[in-house]
């Protein structure tokens, strides 16, 4: 079984979710080829060998420095052919998910996204995927010879199984049609922990009263090396950027620790956090519904508790 893994990177570094995808493909028992597109740090790519890649391809064409959905799908389909790979594994993301969709349609693959576990291949090929925004799972059989698996964060636990390997350049023959969409510019936070990748998330809601009060949450987040998130009204009111909005209609996070401050815990918010390992809720209302979904709770005023919590964490380090 030859498996191709699509590697995504940010600021030259391979994304953690893509490393999970390599580990996942290796755990499936396949012969794993990883492929990265555009500019990526070579040492980062070599290191993929440690996580189970037998071969690492790099399509370094500068036209691929931008994540153009159509062009990426074309490169992946060609690489699947060249490597005789039947299965494509990728991390679900704003780029991976739509790219996987086009690949599946191009090659007639059975596709499953938000996959949470290694497939059960004891009879057929059964994957478990998260549905209803984390409220349930479906076990689905993928019957076509070709398959595309999109992984939810934490589908595999990162561990080293081998040694770094050298990177093989991969040449592409792209056509103009692949670049029908043009990326004219982008705005991206740099040097921050990205919300979908974060191990710890500190999230604020309307209870924070205004954007000027986010300093204490940012301080806590910095202390924990965490990403910051927020509830929908907070991004609707432009207190925080839209990409921080967590929930049913926003980012779905799956960190080790989610700290919710001044968020009531509406079911639509919970839908975005229910894959967190541990949830801490800080709210002044003892009846806030979020406490029912929490592992630990503190009833009290965020403006008093957050600075104390930050200090306590610093002291414990």
């Amino acid at each position, binding site marked *: 079984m030859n498996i191709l893994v699509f590697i995504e990177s940010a600021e030259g570094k391979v994304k953690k979710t893509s490393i999970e995808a390599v580990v996942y493909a290796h755990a499936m028992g396949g012969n794993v080829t990883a492929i990265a597109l555009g500019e990526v740090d070579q040492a980062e790519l070599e290191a993929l060998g440690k996580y189970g890649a037998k071969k690492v391809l790099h399509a370094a064409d500068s036209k691929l420095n931008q994540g153009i*959905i159509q062009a990426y*799908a074309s490169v992946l389909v060609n690489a699947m052919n060249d490597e005789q790979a039947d299965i494509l594994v990728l991390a679900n993301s*704003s780029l991976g*998910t*739509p790219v996987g*969709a*086009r690949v*599946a*349609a*191009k090659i007639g*693959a*059975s*596709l499953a*996204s938000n996959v949470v576990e290694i497939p059960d291949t004891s009879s057929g090929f059964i994957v478990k995927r998260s*549905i*209803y*925004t*984390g*409220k*349930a*799972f*479906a*076990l*689905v*059989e993928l*019957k*076509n010879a070709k398959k595309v698996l999109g992984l939810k964060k934490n589908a595999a636990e990162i561990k080293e199984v081998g040694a770094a390997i050298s990177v093989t350049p991969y040449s592409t023959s792209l056509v103009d049609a692949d670049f029908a*969409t*043009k*990326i*004219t510019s*982008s*705005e*991206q*936070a740099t040097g*921050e922990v*990205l919300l979908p990748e974060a191990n710890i998330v500190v999230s604020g809601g309307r209870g924070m009263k205004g954007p000027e009060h986010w300093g204490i949450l940012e301080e806590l987040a910095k202390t924990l090396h965490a990403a910051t998130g927020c509830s929908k009204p907070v991004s609707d009111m432009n207190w925080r950027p*839209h*990409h921080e909005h967590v929930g049913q*209609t926003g980012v779905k996070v799956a960190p080790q*620790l989610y700290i919710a401050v001044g968020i009531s815990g509406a079911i639509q918010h919970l*839908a975005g956090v*229910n894959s967190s390992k*541990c949830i*801490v*809720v800080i709210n002044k209302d003892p009846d806030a519904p979020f*406490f*029912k979904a*929490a592992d*630990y*709770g*503190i*009833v*009290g005023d965020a403006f*008093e*508790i957050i600075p*104390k*919590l930050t200090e*306590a964490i610093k002291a*414990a380090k």
Partner: protein
Amino acid sequence: MKILVCISHVPDTTSKINFTDNNTKFDSNGVQFIIGPYDDYALARAIEIKEASGATVTVINVGLAETEPTIRKALAIGADDAIRVNAEPTDSFFVAAQIAEQAKSGYDLILMGRESIDYNSGVVHGMVGEMLGMPSISPVMKLEIEGNTAKLAREIEGGKEFLEVNLPFVAGCQEPIAEWKIPNMRGIMSARTKPLTVVEPIAFDSGVKLQKFELPPPKGSVKMISPDNVGELVTLLKNEAKVL
């Protein structure tokens, strides 16, 4: 300009999810169905474009007869006509094949939600784009059309990117592309007589077969900590939950 908006018929976001028939069927008992929230953004943007510069808006749903009230709601919000592909939407690839078949007749713009909130695949737009040989862009948070060109903003992790593309193309939409629209009385009245065409599905096997559903294990109870003893929380997170 002809715009096609793809709407899914999904349980309201507050629904409790349960299954019946040995965990092989969704239990729709007591569940209210809505237009998918992301699809609702797509529809709202389509109506805005229609109001600003003139367009016809067709909505399409792949679903059995029970989805018609949801389709009528989209007509009440301002779509001109509707297509229902008479099939159970068992899988995103199957749905995409049906939509692509109906969209062949020629649309300048195909808008959908970035993902459905039942299956959460986030793939129908990419698949339809591929099947029709059109660009597909998702998740789109801004869409402006000037003549034959569109300017879009797409959300990426930690930010956004700005794109340009020529019509026709497919977009998977999310907020803040437009504000959700609520149907008014006149819209509701006129929706009753707007054309809703029912077509039979084409044969298509996506090679995805549901085996069964599962619910996550129930959550344990919350441990409350005194606001005067924040240090205890840190200790518990370290030693009990082992997440620090």
